């Protein structure tokens, strides 16, 4: 009986080892694919970084008003671009390596991933554009409100920033097909909440200002003009 047990153990050991041995080329292929894609990513990243620096990309992006202030992030637009491109290449290498394991199983996975890729790209683009727009418009609101001597300028600016960010987040999640109706409803509640908060804050804080402005527009009150200072 011990012979039979020993034989069964031998066979199972052999089967496991054979299975492991059959997986080894796949592992090796995955490692090689990752290594090669990392090397390509590094080389392309190096060239891209130098090209973007020679084009003064960081300053141009700053000039478009799409960046935050110094200290808000420790990475420059060049760093971000290089990182995104490099990691995309490594990811493609990973997919190539995974395909080497089991052609039928992994090809299904890869085809599903590729079908999902446009959604992912669209969501990333929406997030990037939304983030930049949030920064640009919140800064515009902040400067405009300060110039009008509005004491709650910072609050207005933050409100504008979060309005755009919430809208952007909801749009990105929609593209990713995550959450379904919950996202729409959560967005409606959050967006409405921010608008209501701002309306209350501005309405209560600037009741007199708004009523004076409305009265002036209705022609009931003369415009407050002064000739003391002539700037032009």
């Amino acid at each position, binding site marked *: 009986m011990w012979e039979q047990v020993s034989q069964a153990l031998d066979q199972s050991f052999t089967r496991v080892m054979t299975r492991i041995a059959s997986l080894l080329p796949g592992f090796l292929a995955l490692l090689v694919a990752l290594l090669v894609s990392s090397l390509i990513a590094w080389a392309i990243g190096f060239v891209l970084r130098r090209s973007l620096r020679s084009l003064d990309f960081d300053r141009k992006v700053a000039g*478009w*008003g799409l960046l935050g202030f110094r200290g808000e992030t420790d990475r420059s637009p060049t760093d971000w671009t290089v990182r995104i491109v490099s990691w995309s290449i490594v990811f493609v290498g990973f997919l190539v390596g995974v395909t080497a394991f089991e052609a039928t199983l992994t090809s299904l996975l890869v085809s599903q991933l590729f079908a999902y890729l446009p959604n992912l790209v669209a969501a990333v683009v929406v997030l990037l554009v939304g983030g930049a727009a949030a920064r640009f418009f919140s800064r515009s609101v902040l400067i405009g409100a300060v110039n009008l001597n509005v004491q709650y300028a910072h609050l207005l600016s933050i409100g504008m920033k979060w309005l755009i960010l919430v809208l952007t987040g909801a749009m990105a999640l929609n593209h990713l097909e995550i959450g379904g109706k919950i996202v729409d409803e959560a967005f409606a509640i959050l967006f409405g909440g921010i608008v209501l908060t701002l309306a209350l804050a501005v309405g209560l804080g600037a009741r007199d200002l708004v009523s004076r402005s409305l009265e002036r527009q209705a022609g009931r009150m003369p415009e407050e003009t002064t000739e003391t200072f002539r700037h032009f």
Partner: protein
Amino acid sequence: MPETESLPQQVKEQIESIGRADVVIGLPSFRTREDLSWASADGFVGLNVLIAYPSSGEVLEAGAFPSEHLVRYPISAPERYLSGPTGVYGTFQEILQIGQRVESKACCVWNSNPQGASMEIIEQMLRPVLDQGFDLVFPIYKEAKLGALVNSSIICPMTRALYGKQIHFPMAIDLGFSSSLVDRLLETDPRTRQPRSAQWIATEAICTGLPVCQVGLPMDTPRPPDSTDLSSILTIILGRLFADLERNTSYWQRSSGSELVPTFGTPGIREDDAIAPAELQRMIETFQLGYRNLAEIWGVALTPATLVGLKRLTNLAVSQFRMADDLWVRVVYDFALAHRQRAINREHLLRAMTPLYLAWVASYALEMKDASITDFQNRLERLALAYESQKPYLLSRWRWPDRFNP
């Protein structure tokens, strides 16, 4: 004929039928007949005068001025000097083209309200061109302690320090031109591919080495026509001033000191109203609010030493609120540098300068509260000298923006 010709065929035919005219007076802001009630054949004895007015206004009938010497022309909107959404502009292009077509010796473009002009004033503006060979004539409007503050605080002293000419109103939109300057302004600038008249005419003439002069006029500084939004107009004017620094770098980096510009006539003096303390308070509050909220944007443009100076200002009581000339000049120069470097969006940058400008105005108004007109002139002279003495600072930071950052 110039490459930028924009006159319609009908106007060209009318000009051909007129033939030649010695003097062309252009009134782009003309709207109603009352605007030209002062026109008469009495001025400019012995010279043919042609008046050009835009077709957007009323049609003039024969009156004191001969109707055959009146030309209506359509204004092309893009050709606006100091163009901007708020209506701070001057329109030169068509009038200069008419002046060139009739081979005029002198041409006056009166962009501000025509009701403020008269035949005598226009003749005063053009006599230096006709009799003494000047190419460009600037007006000097009535002096007032609290008038034309953007000009007094930035444009006039900065132009003087950088371009070396003491011109009172370098950005005036009422100007007198010689025929040679008209020809030059109608050429297309090879660098910008735009007509030169759309650029800043004062620096164009100075950098070309053309003789310029100024004439004292008995009238207030014209106001911007459509808007009173200080921030928007400041953005347009400073944007043009700073953009011009980039265009003329090679000229202003070589020039040093400044010289008087020949001046004819004496400008009047406008009495200021009493300063309302509430207005001063509001300006200082705007500055303090700006320091609390815009310090990050200012930090992009200003050096740490300048920021420390501004921080000290925020702690001062209203009665002691004074901004030193050197501090103000560094603020202006730092913003000019940040504008050049495109450190952040240019419109954001220039709009963020408004609270700083208001701080200067408040400080200046407090200082000038009981000052005489002589004190006021001396005060502006001191400011202009501060701009000149700080020019090496601008020069160093312009050449080595990263290395020289005190």
